[in-house]
């Protein structure tokens, strides 16, 4: 609200100076165009974000208790850093990221290279590989819970058959060592098609003349890949790795549906812990401290965004 008021006054002071009538009108129109989005962003993004920072310094609770909310300084943060469950959550997210980011990026690149050939039926395969992406995560989590069924699940049956009875059965989601890898696997299965499409777009942006020049020089498939394709895809890879890293720290839906953080906190994640603290333990102040730390982690997303803005600004000039 404050912002809007201040902006109004600036426009009116300018309006009194010697500016043609149509230009003044143009300014009002442009503000009218911009104001709905600005107000919505202010109320539903900026204010809650500032509130999160504020709450993280108080002992705010979800349901107001008999005691008034007080300012506690950095107490939430110091407690958080000593909180074993939160540490476990950070560790789990990092472990998830360390495995999923390279595997998903590599697989996405591989799929894109495979599909970037002139062959019949490519469009069909592309559609098939992308179909898990359009399936909502909540649905996927439920279906995979069934596949991971401890006694008689399909995954166990598959492993047993192909290892000639040597492997399994495992109790995937009930086993503290296997639950997180199980979630990683389905997350890669679901997400890889998305990044494959991004890589395909990147591949199509590489100029054909580069390859022609290389072929004239006698470069084979492998050398074209090594010296042209991969260097040309550097920006795409950079983006995909940042996107998958952010995704790794946002991990929530699968955990909420499949394991609820268990067994023995082996699948607790930062976002899941934050929601759990605020909803089930009603500790909003504490949860807000988690939210602020989570935001700081996700800030790496700023790098590609800034890069993009610089590019857009250049184009404008």
């Amino acid at each position, binding site marked *: 609200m404050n912002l809007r008021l201040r902006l109004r006054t600036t426009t009116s002071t300018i309006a009194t100076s010697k500016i043609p009538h149509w230009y003044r009108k*143009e300014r009002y129109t442009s503000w009218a165009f911009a104001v709905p*989005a*600005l107000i919505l962003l202010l109320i539903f993004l900026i204010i809650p974000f500032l509130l999160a920072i504020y709450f993280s310094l108080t002992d705010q609770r979800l349901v107001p208790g008999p005691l008034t909310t007080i300012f506690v300084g950095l107490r939430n943060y110091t407690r958080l850093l000593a909180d074993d469950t939160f540490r476990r959550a950070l560790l789990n997210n990092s472990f998830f990221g360390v495995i999923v980011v390279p595997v998903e990026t590599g697989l996405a690149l591989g799929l894109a290279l495979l599909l970037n050939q002139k062959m019949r039926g490519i469009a069909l395969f592309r559609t098939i590989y992308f179909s898990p992406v359009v399936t909502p995560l909540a649905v996927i989590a439920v*279906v995979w819970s069934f596949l991971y069924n401890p006694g008689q699940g399909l995954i166990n049956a598959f492993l047993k058959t192909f290892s000639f009875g040597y492997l399994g059965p495992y109790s995937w989601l009930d086993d503290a060592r296997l639950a997180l890898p199980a979630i990683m696997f389905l997350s890669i299965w679901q997400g890889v098609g998305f990044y494959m499409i991004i890589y395909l777009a990147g591949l199509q942006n590489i100029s054909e003349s580069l390859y022609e020049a290389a072929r004239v020089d006698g470069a084979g498939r*492998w050398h074209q890949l090594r010296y042209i394709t991969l260097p040309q895809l550097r920006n795409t890879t950079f983006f995909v790795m940042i996107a998958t890293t952010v995704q790794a720290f946002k991990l929530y839906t699968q955990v909420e549906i499949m394991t609820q953080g268990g067994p023995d906190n082996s699948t607790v994640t930062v976002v899941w812990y934050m929601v759990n603290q*605020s909803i089930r333990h009603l500790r909003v102040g504490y949860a807000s401290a988690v939210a602020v730390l989570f935001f700081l982690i996700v800030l790496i997303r700023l790098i590609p965004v800034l890069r993009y803005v610089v590019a857009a600004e250049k184009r*404008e000039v």
Partner: protein
Amino acid sequence: MALTTRKVRGSALTREKATHAPLPSTSRRYIWLALNYLLMILLAIFFLFPIVFMIISSLKANEDQLLQDVSTVKAFIPYGDLSLQNYNDVFQRFPFGLYLFNSLVIVTCIVTLGLLVNSLIAYALARMPFPGRKLILIAIVVLVVIPFESVAVPLLLLVNQFPWLNGATTWIDSYQVQIIPFIADAFSIFLFYQFFLDIPKNIEEAAFVDGASRLRIYWQLVVPLSRSVFITVAIWQFLTHIGDFLWPLLVTRSDTYRPLMVGMRVLFAQSPLHWGDVMAFASMITIFMLVVFLLFHRWFLRSVASAGITG
């Protein structure tokens, strides 16, 4: 440095040529093609098997048979007591129609209102020089970075105390609480902004000289010219918000306003768990999404590609 790489490259090249030279090139190409297809088919199986498994399981009315089949190849064979009984059960025991309706209402509102609000501000930012333009642009860039998850909890407290037109004093358990917070979206504004910058200015200038108002220029010139970015943003928003789970879980208390994904969780948390019903519920959502995807699949892929490149 550069010299050595070239040297290594050169020697590797000659070696490769030497080893492969005896094979005739056409048969080599066929082998390569066959290997590619084999790999692609195996991958297709990998990506489709859970979906096929889900749909076939949902058709098996006999729960015991369903559970026994899971540990064998029979999980993928539609046989035995096949019927739509599970689907019938889902409709009988759960308000599936209501969940679907809620999801559609929420997503449609987010997408349509979002297209309008976000494209308008983007147009102003791209075309109309007004004081504060640069500042707003920077602010929006910064906002792209804030993940929804980090504002969810304070937002929950905030909307809990918002009044609404019908005299309600809270937004909890309503449609608006699932729609209004997502209308304005910094990332969508960006996609629009980027696209509008590329439209040649002279078309608009001609209309402007002719005395057309900005709103008219926007509506009659810019919107038709930018159809592709509108579709891109619409699909992007649809894909993001149809699967929303965290926020609806926080703000819905009853079935009246629950969307499909939260309904799915309610069904899944029931005990005893009836897998046939769960699979039928999951199949219906998946089939719905796949049909939408297949109808607009080119646009979906284009949308992801452009969102990925810029975001």
